């Protein structure tokens, strides 16, 4: 007796199977483009009413939901019993859960990041040593573009646990510039010049009022702080311009910005030690003689 029976291909590929295959192909071939088109249209229509991040989330939500519906429909058309599948999924889910703890943590962290709204797409954030523009807040990670055009992916889990600075959250920022001048300079004159520089700069805001503070008696200089407010867009330009202007005005006024230095004394308030350079080779003539 034969162990097996020859199976004709017509026994396998029955008209029902062909019809199901056609239905599945149509579902995939038409369904996916419709889902993508719907997501695009909805995103464009609601672009003006939603933020960039909101529109992106909505598009992704439509795509994920549409994909899930198509997948379930395909499985149903294929004859799979979804109840059995869900049962198996439960067992598989436990196994996958153990294996994908980090991914699940990232997903949950992503949900919290979005709901907290500490930052949004388009904001500039600083995470550790990394500063960049937020390109997207995705399921598992946040994508940044740095100012030198590098692409950085930060897992959501590490963002939830780390300090994140949103540089562009508020419309104005305060620029702090520390300036050191020599001890011989007049602090009042230095303050007046710094305030005048801030007053004349077009990017510097009149209010909040710029301020100058005599911070401390430093090791090598008198330390001043010039604090000026500007819009977040003007921040970097103002920082460069103010430093340049401070240097030029101090040079014009004869105000010294000293290098760090140490003064040696042999005892109490004596003359500095004289320093004489001698050549290495005793046969060489002394350059000073």
């Amino acid at each position, binding site marked *: 007796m034969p162990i097996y029976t020859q199976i004709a291909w017509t026994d396998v590929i029955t008209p029902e199977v062909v019809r199901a295959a056609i239905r599945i192909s149509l579902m995939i071939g038409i369904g996916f483009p419709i889902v993508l088109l719907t997501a695009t249209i909805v995103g464009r229509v609601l672009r003006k009413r939603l933020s960039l991040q909101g529109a992106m989330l909505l598009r992704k939500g439509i795509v994920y939901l549409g994909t899930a519906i198509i997948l379930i429909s395909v499985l149903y058309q294929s004859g799979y019993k979804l109840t059995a599948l869900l049962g198996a999924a439960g067992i598989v889910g436990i196994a996958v859960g153990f294996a994908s703890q980090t991914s699940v943590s990232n997903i949950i962290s992503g949900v919290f990041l979005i709901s907290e709204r500490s930052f949004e797409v388009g904001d500039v954030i600083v995470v550790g040593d990394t500063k960049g523009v937020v390109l997207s807040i995705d399921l598992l990670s946040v994508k940044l573009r740095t100012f030198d055009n590098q692409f950085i992916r930060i897992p959501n889990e590490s963002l939830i646990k780390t300090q994140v600075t949103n540089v562009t959250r508020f*419309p104005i920022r305060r620029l702090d510039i520390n300036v050191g001048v020599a001890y011989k300079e007049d602090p009042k004159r230095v303050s007046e010049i710094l305030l005048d520089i801030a007053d004349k700069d077009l990017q510097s805001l009149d209010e*909040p009022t710029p*301020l100058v503070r005599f911070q401390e008696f430093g090791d090598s200089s008198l330390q001043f702080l010039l604090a000026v407010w500007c819009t977040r867009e003007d921040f970097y330009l103002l920082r460069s311009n103010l430093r340049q202007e401070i240097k030029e005005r101090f040079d014009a006024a004869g105000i010294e910005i000293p290098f760090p230095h140490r003064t040696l004394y042999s005892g109490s308030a004596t003359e500095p030690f004289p320093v004489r350079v001698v050549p290495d080779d005793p046969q060489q003539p002394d350059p000073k003689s």
Partner: protein
Amino acid sequence: MDVGIWQPSQIEADTRYRALAGPLQLWLRRAGDELHIAVDRYPDFDAHHETQPLTPVPNSQPENLTWARWVVGKAGDTVQLVPTTPDRPLVVRPEVPLRLPSKQEALFFVNFPIWVKVSAAAQHSLTLCEEPCIVLSKTWFGDPMSGALCYSMRTRARRDFVDIQARPHRAVCPVRIRNSAAQQLDLERFCVHVEHLTLFQGTTRLWTNQIDVTFRGDKEISQLDYGKHPPTYETVGEVICKARHPVKESLLERGLGSLGLFADDGG
């Protein structure tokens, strides 16, 4: 008041023109279907008050002019300069802080520099650019977390407009402030939304419609009413420039107040 500067001018090709509006110098030339415009300003803006319409100056041009080009086609035959209000609100700070007791009101005249709009074609239908006669510094009105970017201006807050020297590159805005609160109003600054103001040609100067502000207390929002008619302090003619953003109803805004959130010791 000489209003020739605001009349349309015929522009001949390949000829350099210059107009003056106080310290603002507008340079213009037509080359084919293009209009070239450059801007310069006298550094000492207090010393320059005259206006001059677009006048040919073939032999004169500062060395450091930066030209911008517009392709305007045949519309470049006619150019008109139009006075307009600044593109942002003005935060006006009296040189001497004012105090308005409860239930009192006062009328002030704020004298602010105008902008000049360069338009091609008839009825100034094609706006090319806008330039301020005087570049005002920027300031923030509101708290550091929200507010508005404005221009900053100090004023003597004159009580009579005849005390204000008529300048062709400035406009006068009457502001009436009523203190209906139980407390005294310490007026350190107020925000004038010039974008809601219409410019009128007066006998001696440019005017805007009046603003009526009712102060209801620090914790209440002030009511602002923008007059729909020309001011009546002198004979005022037609509208010379409509408001950038006309207002139909009165507004409830924080136009007055202090900025206590900015108290900062720099530490």
